[in-house]
């Protein structure tokens, strides 16, 4: 490439990044126009005839010619005919393309060109391509053909014109401005969906980095988002796939804690379904289920987003139904308040005992959507109300229901986070319920719930509301352990490499484990949490990273042992500020695993197939489906059967 072209390329490549606000406005505009178009579809939708391709010449122009009566056109016809025009045609090198005209035999054909031109372009100089004729590239065709033939493989017509020999291809599709170009800006401000995710966890070499530390995560939003995408016929955005949330979506029957600790950890080692030469270390944590009858009264503040964007069947109406379901599960002594935020925040229902259900239901029904969203103003009010409701020993929680938009007030997740952190320390927690698709701001949802010691759930169906709000009511609302951190130290003598599947957004620094100031995830009553490592034993043919030639090879310093690693858990009891430590060795003992273990492995595979299947080699959908199907177990609520259905859907969508 010449230097000129190189410089030109550099210049052309250096374009500014799109402005985020403009982007969001433009996408919103396009989506509004799209929606409008659907409304008036029959009228607005052009037929295929309006975008002429080959057939155009035979239909449109013929018709045009038949009705061609304007004086100018007729004059042109005549004058051109009398000129005895010689017609040039451009035959580009190597191309079979080209409108093959004939010598100006029939005037009507020339008028075709002129008329077409007049139709397509009011001001000709800018519309035409002025192809600089090059010597040797032009041929004068003297041959006579019966009719213009468009042997054009593309959708423009080259027509011949003027006695000056210019060759003018005319763009018949240059009718762009016929469409609604400058529509006014729409009122709503969807920002598109934003997801919180990190690159998949890389493979770690035990010798170099033996310790893996992360925070537990009991969110389930990612699974519901994936389900919503798949049932609508799309593969989800890989960024929306958080594997640990998929795994933790399902209830598992891990051994319940005995004794004083609030949860029990169980470690199982099984053969990796997708790689016979590696193993999965499966860590299942089961939270205790306190006797429900004795639970302290709940103080719930529903903070409901009633912005304009919530006005869709799967948003506000579904939210109302969900809350109705949940009300049935509350005790007479529980308290409920409702705050709406839409432009200005407002208390819809003052704290009311759950026994007065008709009053609460009436207030719920009053909620209507409309106006902009001021997330923070509503949040402040909800927290203020929650604080007035709180008595000693009681749990207060704000339940924020939104489609994810916080576009007035603090829209910066960091600022919102710090607000919620402060409130969390004063004893009010926050859970976030996401509704609807389109402008779901997953990143903000995550940030809020994570810092409010709560759960982020995405509610796409009433069944999901039943699961998140009713079946797991106590868990979602009643924490039993805070800041639960997991640290695994692998033994370099037995484990060559390892990788944590999922938890990308929850990774902690090694030193954070013992630092009680560092926040981490919380476990609610009866919650189970699962973490899975894929490990490659020393000497396995699956070892990916070779040992260094010059590194210290004195493996003898490691005591050969059956210990693959050592699991440490830290947690705080609710209200405490210092953590307690639990420790368990991970022994080499590969077993078949029960249904729970195998099902969670299948879901780990499912997640990787959706996100990044680097480590799966040829293990695919069929294997994932078979594994999940064989490990459904009791499946009381049909969650696992649903997962298998989703895998089948994903398989056909991916076309594999």
């Amino acid at each position, binding site marked *: 490439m*010449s230097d000129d072209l190189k410089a030109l390329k550099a210049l052309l490549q250096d374009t500014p990044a*799109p402005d985020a606000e403009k*982007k969001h406005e433009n996408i919103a505009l396009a989506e509004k126009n799209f929606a409008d178009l659907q409304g008036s*579809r029959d009228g607005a*939708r052009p037929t*295929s005839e309006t975008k002429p391709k080959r057939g155009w010449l035979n239909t449109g122009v013929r018709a045009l010619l038949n009705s061609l009566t304007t004086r100018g056109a007729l004059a042109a016809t005549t004058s051109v005919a009398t000129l005895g025009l010689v017609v040039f045609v451009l035959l580009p*090198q190597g191309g079979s*393309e080209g409108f093959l005209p004939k010598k100006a035999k029939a005037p009507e054909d020339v008028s075709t060109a002129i008329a077409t031109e007049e139709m397509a372009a009011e001001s000709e100089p*800018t519309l035409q391509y002025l192809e600089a004729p090059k010597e040797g590239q032009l041929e004068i065709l003297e041959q006579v053909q019966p009719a213009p033939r468009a042997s054009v493989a593309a959708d423009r017509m080259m027509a011949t014109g003027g006695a000056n020999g210019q060759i003018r291809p005319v763009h018949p599709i240059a009718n762009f401005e016929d469409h609604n170009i400058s529509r006014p800006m729409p009122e709503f401000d969807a920002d598109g969906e934003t997801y919180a995710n990190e690159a998949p966890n890389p493979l770690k070499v035990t010798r170099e980095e033996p310790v893996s530390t992360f925070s537990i995560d009991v969110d389930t939003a990612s699974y519901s988002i994936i389900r919503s995408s798949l049932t609508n016929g799309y593969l989800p955005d890989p960024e929306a796939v958080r594997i640990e949330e998929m795994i933790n979506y399902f209830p598992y029957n891990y051994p319940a804690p005995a004794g004083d600790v609030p949860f029990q950890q169980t470690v199982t080692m099984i053969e990796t379904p997708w790689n016979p030469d590696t193993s999965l270390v499966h860590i299942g944590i089961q939270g205790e289920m306190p006797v429900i009858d004795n639970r302290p009264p709940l103080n719930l503040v529903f903070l409901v987003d009633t912005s304009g964007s919530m006005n869709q069947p799967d948003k506000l109406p579904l939210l109302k139904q969900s809350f109705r379901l949940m009300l049935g599960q509350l005790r007479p002594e529980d308290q409920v308040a409702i705050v709406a935020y839409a432009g200005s925040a407002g208390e819809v229902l003052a704290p009311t005992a759950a026994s007065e259900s008709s009053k609460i239901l009436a207030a719920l029904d009053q909620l209507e959507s409309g106006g902009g969203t001021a997330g923070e103003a509503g949040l402040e009010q909800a927290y203020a109300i929650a604080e007035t409701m709180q008595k000693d020993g009681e749990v207060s929680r704000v339940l924020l229901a939104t489609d994810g938009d916080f576009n007035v007030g603090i829209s910066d997740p960091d600022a919102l986070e710090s607000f919620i952190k402060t409130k969390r320390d004063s004893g009010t927690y926050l859970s976030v319920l996401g509704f609807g698709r389109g402008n779901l701001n997953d990143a903000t949802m995550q940030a809020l719930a994570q810092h409010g010691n709560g759960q982020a759930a995405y509610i796409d169906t009433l069944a999901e509301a039943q699961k998140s709000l009713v079946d797991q009511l106590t868990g979602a609302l009643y924490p039993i352990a805070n800041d639960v951190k997991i640290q695994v130290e692998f033994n370099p003598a037995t484990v060559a490499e390892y990788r944590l599947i999922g938890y990308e957004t929850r990774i902690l620094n090694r030193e954070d484990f013992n630092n009680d100031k560092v926040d981490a995830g919380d476990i609610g009553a009866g919650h189970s949490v699962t973490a899975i490592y894929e490990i490659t034993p020393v000497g396995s043919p699956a070892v990916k990273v070779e040992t260094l030639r010059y590194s210290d090879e004195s493996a003898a310093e490691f005591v050969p042992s059956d210990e693959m690693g050592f699991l440490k858990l830290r947690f705080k009891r609710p209200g405490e500020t210092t953590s307690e430590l639990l420790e368990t060795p991970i022994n080499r003992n590969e077993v078949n695993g029960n249904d729970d273990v195998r099902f969670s492995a299948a879901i780990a595979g499912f997640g990787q197939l959706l996100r*990044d299947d680097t480590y799966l080699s040829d293990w695919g959908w069929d294997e994932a489906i078979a594994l999940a199907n064989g490990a459904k177990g009791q499946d009381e609520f049909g969650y696992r059967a649903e997962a298998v259905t989703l895998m089948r859907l994903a398989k056909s969508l991916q076309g594999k």
Partner: protein
Amino acid sequence: METDDETLALAAANGDGEAFGLLLRRHYDRLFGLCCRLAGNTTEAEDLTQDICAALPAKLANFRGDAKFTTWLYRVAINASHDRRRRRATHARAANNWGDWELNRVAENEEAAQQSDWLATAISTLPVELRDTVILILGEELTQAQAGEILSVSEGTIAWRMSEVKKHLRAYHQKEGYP
């Protein structure tokens, strides 16, 4: 790992709003980049992008899946830029735009600024079809075949146009005495 553009585009052409949104988000940045190259300055590029976004739903109703979606989108964008230029701008103004953009953008590096400014002016003097071609080939890094499909000309024409661009730049050099 994701649904291909053509499937989404056909779904959108049949009225699927979610598919439309997904598709537009997937291609917005690329579209904006192309608009910058076509328009020559950021302000114009933003207006052009907005025009395209506004009209895209109606355009997409015509998408039949006989070309790749990206090819189709490039075509729509280029036609829109022609329309816009026709409606709004004279050739001279377009030339100024390139110059302004450059002057504002790269002031910190004198030499580079000079070079770019020269090029920017040079681009603005190219005939429209050469400019479109050079934007697709150098700016978007498409192959000659892809560019040909978008502009509805043969590969050979694209090759010839690129050689014309080279000639044009050389001639511009000599005339303007740079460097």
